[in-house]
């Protein structure tokens, strides 16, 4: 068994896919007769197959005796090559699914397949089978199913955030948003808002990862490290910002039907972890009381 240890990032895992694949080819080239039985533990004697290869996106807890370990150095060049191959041979939909799986962060439970390993074997399977991109439909295959679950987690959270994310207008006219997603949804959000608000300067800041997507009017966005973010600058809001926030709160409180108030349904639809970043919920606690600035309806 050959184990490739990758950094848990799109770059890291794609570089791992590249290295593992290259390793397998190299390994088989060195063989004098093209190999015999597959799946053997001893390297160099029998043909190396993809089943002999494992990727992991985390440092192994204990190293197995009969396994060889290879740390993977993330390389933009290698990961670009993998990305281009996937797009060209399997199409953008396949690529996006894999990309979403890469961005997922699901607490690893015992017995579950590692993210990097699931992606490697799904990619290998798709590239080698006539089904191609349709390999993703094979949900009864454990690696494919894992990619499906991971990818869905990111896609669902990103879809939520397309709606739940809020911008504030800063003094300098920049729209600023702070998010705390579980999965790394930032690239997906940045793309959406670049299309939606092409003429705005905006920043979406993932406070957990200290990463930001920065967009200047008329340009494409950039992902940037934001550990040195100017905390004072993001506190200074434009003069009309407070006014629009309170208009929004007034709307939010008045749009609920009192005879149907249902806090549990509300919390089921917008899970509480999103509340801190949406002013209408963090400031009103959900708005379950009769609106303060409202004409009382004749109920």
């Amino acid at each position, binding site marked *: 068994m050959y184990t490739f240890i990758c950094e848990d990032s799109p770059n890291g895992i794609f570089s791992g896919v590249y290295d593992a694949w290259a390793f397998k080819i190299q390994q088989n080239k060195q063989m004098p007769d093209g190999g015999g039985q597959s799946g053997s533990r001893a390297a160099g004697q029998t043909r190396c197959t993809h089943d002999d290869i494992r990727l992991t996106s985390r440092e192994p807890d204990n190293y197995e005796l009969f396994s060889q370990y290879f740390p993977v150095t993330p390389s933009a060049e290698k990961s670009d090559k993998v990305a281009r191959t996937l797009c060209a041979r399997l199409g953008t939909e396949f690529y996006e699914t894999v990309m979403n799986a890469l961005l997922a962060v699901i607490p690893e439970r015992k017995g579950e397949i590692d993210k990097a390993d699931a992606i490697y074997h799904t990619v290998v399977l798709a590239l080698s089978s006539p089904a191609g991109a349709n390999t993703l439909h*094979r949900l009864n295959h454990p690696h494919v199913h894992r990619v499906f679950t991971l990818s869905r987690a990111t896609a669902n959270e990103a879809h939520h955030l397309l709606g739940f994310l809020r911008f504030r207008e800063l003094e300098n006219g920049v729209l600023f948003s702070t998010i705390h997603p579980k999965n790394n949804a930032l690239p997906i959000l940045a793309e959406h808002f670049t299309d939606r608000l092409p003429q705005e300067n905006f920043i979406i800041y993932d406070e957990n990862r200290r990463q930001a997507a920065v967009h200047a009017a008329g340009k494409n966005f950039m992902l940037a490290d934001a550990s040195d973010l100017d905390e004072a600058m993001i506190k200074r809001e434009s003069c009309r910002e407070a006014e629009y926030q309170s*208009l929004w709160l007034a709307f939010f409180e008045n749009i609920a039907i009192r005879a149907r108030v249902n806090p549990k*349904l509300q919390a*089921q639809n917008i899970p509480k972890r999103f509340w801190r970043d949406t002013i*209408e919920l963090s400031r009103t606690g959900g708005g379950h009381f009769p609106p303060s600035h*409202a004409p009382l309806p004749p109920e």
Partner: protein
Amino acid sequence: MNIQMNMSLAEKLAILSDAAKYDVACTSSGVDRRGNGAGMGNSVAAGICHTFSADGRCVSLLKILFTNECIFNCAYCQNNCNSDVPRASFTPDEVCELTMEFYRRNYIEGLFLSSGIMVSPNYTMGLIYQTLYQLRRVHQFNGYIHVKAIPGADPVLVEKTGFLADRMSINLELPTAEGLKKLAPYKSRHTILKPMRQIQNRITENKNEVALYRKAPRFVPAGQSTQMIIGATPEHDYEIMRVAESLYQKFDLKRVFYSAFVNVNQDANLPVLPGGPPLLREHRLYQADWLLRYYDFTVDELLSEERPDFNIYLDPKCDWALRHLECFPIEINRADYRTLLRVPGIGAKSAQRIVKARRTAALGFSDLKKIGVVLKRALYFITCSGKMMYRTKLDEDYICRNLIGDRTQIPREIREAGYKQLSLFDIGMEP
């Protein structure tokens, strides 16, 4: 009337969002439109919810009335000319400002503009048109717009407005013409259905124009919708669903919405609902509506003159399956898509996944679970490679007892709203 001058924008917004809240359609779905690089906005076909209000409903659009002044007196409506509520009207500029500033901050997906009828239908429709025109042409707003067509307004105005909107709707209000006559004396089936037909025809023509010339302006690209109030008048579910079905078939509507009646006016013509609005009934109607639109069911398969109301204890698909045990069990690895859709516990997504996944290997029960099938509901109705999951009887009473024991049959949101007793109105509709 209680008209106030010099109101602040905040006061107007409070009044005119409060006045709009009984309109249920808040979806922003039905049209995919990329940003144009210059203006502001795009649109995502699946729709996006931006928040959920205290009643748990999705807030997607800035849902407001242009004005809550109204010359009519529909009995169920809190804005009718006899009710004593504070009145307000926006100006087109104010609506534009709110829409643009809310949209930039990602509070909303777009605008849902409805209105009371001020001065005359034409006058009101004119103001709505002007507002949309300014939003699209002056402010370059490229997000979602849902707009009401005012019954009785000049067709030319309706058409011009439709070229600026994504979705248009005219509320049917009540399922039957008699109900309308009694509760909304100034409206009639005729004044409602006529513009509905006009919009339908224009959408069809426009599809041809766009097919010929890709850049032709789009007319109501996300289609038409309507809404009916449920529980204010004594119709059975069967009549309501038949109306919905014919709206889908004959008027090509995209959506019919159902709104559980909330008694706001204490009008003598209206029922008192001690159990609160008929939420569970509304829920069953939505489920049945779903079966019509995505599951290839017809109303006559679900209900009949003899059995005119849905079983409130079971969702309509389970209920149907129980009465058609002769169709089951079906074999997961062979049944066609349409048959899979009819199995309780298999939704449209799971059915699609099954059809694709079984191409490479026969599926077993554990695969179905991974795919998202709700096995505790489906297990009575399916086999995998000829075997059932457990040995169970294919017996109506037995399965029915087990399914009703499943608490998910009564949706969590309704259970947890402390839905007390199923009120008279849910069961028999006896006023």
